[in-house]
């Protein structure tokens, strides 16, 4: 399998080339085009069972986590995958040395040698009100991540305070706690920052330079109102 990200950083697309027998699982709606013999299967959320559970996650998460699996039946088959919003994509290689915590909207694709746990409650429960959910990814292989805006990859050895809307992913060597942006709740709310994540440890942190929620609010408020 060979993954090549083109048209960086704003209009990125991941070109995934596969030989017969190889397959890649991608977030639903990510496919733009495909060439060669490819069989497609739709899956519910990676590790939970049943349609109802997946609908529940749709309500909680920013998007439902359904995936399509593309399996090559020919050599030199290829599929083009892209996210919804303008921005960059990066391929992170995961292996037995770490796990990757990925913000739900930032996952694009990974082969079957990579496992995706959608029942990871740790962070998911805390931010479900903001429409954010996290995936725990482990195994070995490439993981394609997307960002809204550009991707800033930080090799952390220490501490970092992060606005959750700007968080794409981080490795398991980095611990996290939720804290208020400022010392008191009033300032935290007025600052517009609310809750932030205090990251501490050693590992890789991926940030996106734009926050979808901020963009949505900035642009959306100027659109024609919805009649109620």
């Amino acid at each position, binding site marked *: 399998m060979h993954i090549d990200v083109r048209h960086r950083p704003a*209009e990125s*697309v991941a070109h995934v080339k596969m030989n017969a027998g190889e397959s890649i699982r991608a977030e639903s709606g990510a496919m*733009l085009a495909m*060439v060669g013999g490819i069989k497609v299967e739709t899956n519910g959320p990676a590790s939970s069972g049943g349609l109802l559970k997946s609908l529940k996650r749709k309500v909680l998460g920013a998007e439902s986590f359904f995936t399509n699996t593309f399996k090559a039946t020919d050599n030199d088959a290829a599929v083009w995958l892209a996210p919804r919003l*303008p921005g960059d994509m990066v391929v992170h290689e995961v292996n037995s040395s770490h796990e990757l915590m990925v913000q739900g909207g930032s996952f694009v694709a990974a082969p079957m040698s990579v496992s995706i746990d959608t029942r990871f409650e740790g962070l998911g429960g805390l931010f479900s009100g903001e429409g954010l959910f996290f995936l725990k990814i482990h195994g070995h292989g490439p993981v394609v991540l997307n960002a809204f805006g550009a991707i800033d990859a930080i090799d952390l050895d220490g501490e970092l305070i992060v606005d959750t809307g700007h968080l794409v992913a981080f490795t398991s060597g980095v611990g996290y706690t939720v804290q208020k942006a400022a010392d008191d709740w009033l300032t935290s709310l*007025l600052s517009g920052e609310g809750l932030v994540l205090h990251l501490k440890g050693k590992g890789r942190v991926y940030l996106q330079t734009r926050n979808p929620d901020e963009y949505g609010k900035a*642009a959306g408020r100027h659109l*024609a109102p919805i009649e*109620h």
Partner: protein
Amino acid sequence: MRTEILQSPAFGMLRVTFEMRDDRIVAEAGAMVGHTAGVKMTTEMQGGFLAAAKRKLLGGETIFKNTFTGTKPGQELLLAPGPQGDLQSIKLRAGESFTLLSGAYVAHTGDVKIDTKWQGARSILSGTGFFMLQATGPGELFFAAYGGIEKIDVSRGVLVDNGHIVGFTEGARYELKQFGGFRSFFLGGEGVVCRFIGTGHVYVQTRNVANLVSFLTPFRPVKGSDSTKGKLFDAMKGD
């Protein structure tokens, strides 16, 4: 006349440099960014009123097209499309055609003819509000996309999500298909796809306007709801 595409792939813009007396470029109304003083612009309804009206109703293009010419060698013109994305061109021989998404047209040089192509019941984009135009050479056609542009050879067969088709060359044939079965249509995200085969290329854009709309829709204000809390918050933020 020299043409140069700048700021690819996110903010594609065309820079034209006039060199000879009869150099001219025709562009979509509203495409002009700026030009050297002295560059002349004439506006007309291309092909006459009825042809222009047909194009407006069916193709979604504006009726008016601007023709730019230079009065001194070295004068420049900058043209840009509406959406964020790439701008590319294709040179067409006399009689050679190119099918292009309505709204993707930016400009052309030479004697390119722009016709509507009525798809009828097999319209690739039926229900989407978009149509396809057909451009016929000789000349060079400049077009833009929402997103980056991937040029894909159709000879092995290519399946393309409908929202991402920008255009295709003569010799490429297509048929509409539903992606997967019933379940995948509703849950898999992909809906209608187009299968291309034959010779030539299909041009695919890496972003989809429908996705931008569905992203922004939940952020639209709701009429009649109490938004004073929101307003107070915004005021204190200094918005």
